[in-house]
C-alpha cells in the first residue's frame, strides 16, 4: 500500500496524502483512495487524527507494525 509508505514520514492530511500517493503510484482517484483508507483503517494499520482546526488526517497506528505491512503489500495501492 502506497498509503502506508506515504505515512511512514508522519501523519498527513488526506489532501497531502493523496498527492503523495499519486506521486508514488500515478493516477489514483478519490474513490480508490478512500477505499484504501477504509481497508487500512479496518485492518488497524492507520488511524484518523484531528488537528486543532478540525482537519482530518491519518497516521500509522504503530510505526513498526505498519512499516512491516507496508513492505509486505508493496505495490497494491488498491
Amino acid at each position, binding site marked *: 500500500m502506497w498509503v502506508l509508505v506515504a505515512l511512514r514520514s508522519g501523519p*498527513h*492530511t488526506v*489532501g497531502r496524502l493523496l498527492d503523495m500517493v499519486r506521486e508514488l503510484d500515478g493516477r489514483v482517484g478519490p474513490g480508490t483512495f478512500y477505499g484504501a483508507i477504509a*481497508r487500512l483503517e479496518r485492518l488497524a494499520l492507520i488511524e484518523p487524527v484531528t*488537528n*486543532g482546526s478540525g482537519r482530518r488526517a491519518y497516521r500509522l497506528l504503530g510505526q513498526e507494525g505498519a512499516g512491516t505491512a507496508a513492505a509486505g503489500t508493496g505495490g497494491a495501492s488498491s
Partner: protein
Amino acid sequence: MSRLVRLYPPGWRDRYEAEFLALLEDRPRTAWDIVDTVRGAVDAHLNPQLAATGLEPSPWTHRIPGLLALAAGLMWSAHVVFIAFLVAPGQEWGSLIVYAAVVMLVSLPGDYMAAHGRQIAVVLGAIGACVILSALAPWQIQSLLIIAGYLITIGGMLTLASIRAGIGSGARWRLLVASIALPFACAIPMAIGIQPIGVGAWLILLPYGLAWVLIGLRMAIRGSPTIVDPPLNPIESEVRPA
C-alpha cells in the same frame, strides 16, 4: 459531486463523507475523479464491512460539547416544567434557565468558533443592535426589540449548535420552527390578552430545551473536537495548494 457521494452506503457516509467532500473541494475535479468516485461507491457497497461503525476511537474529549449541550437542554427543560407546575406564581425568577443558557454557550467554542466566526459575528452584531436600539427607541418599540434580541440569541445559539452537530440545512430550519417559531406563535394570544396567561406560558420554552437535548445526544454520539484537543503534529500545516 455531493450527489455522487449519496451513492455510498449510509455507514460509509457517516464515517467518511465530510472529509471526502472536503478533499474533493480542495482540488479541481476531473472526469476521472467522477468515474472513480462511482467506482468507489460500488466497492463500498460490495464491501460493507469497510464502513462498519466503531472503527474510529473517538477521544473522550470529543464528547464534551455534546454532554454540555445535553446537560443544558435537560437543565432548561426540567426547570421549565418545575416552574410551570411546582412554583407559585410570582416566584419564578430564581431561574436556572440563565445558567442553562450559559452552558449552551460554553458548548459551542473550540475549533468550531474559528470555522463559523462569520455566523457568530452576525448573531452577536444583531443582538448588539437590538440592545442599542431598544435603549434609544420609543417605549412602544422597545418590547419588540427586546423580543427580537431574545429570539436572535436563542435561535442563533440553537443554529450554531445544530451546525456543529452536523444537522443539515432543512432539518435545522424544521428544528428552529418547531422549537422557537411555533411556540412563540402559540404565545401571541396570551401576549395580546386574548387568552389568560397560565401554566402554558412557561411551557412554550420547553421545546427549546428538548431541541438542545436532541442536539446534545447527537453531538455526544458523533463526537466533536473541543478546544482542549491539542493540535496534531506541526506537519499538519503542510498542506500544499491544489
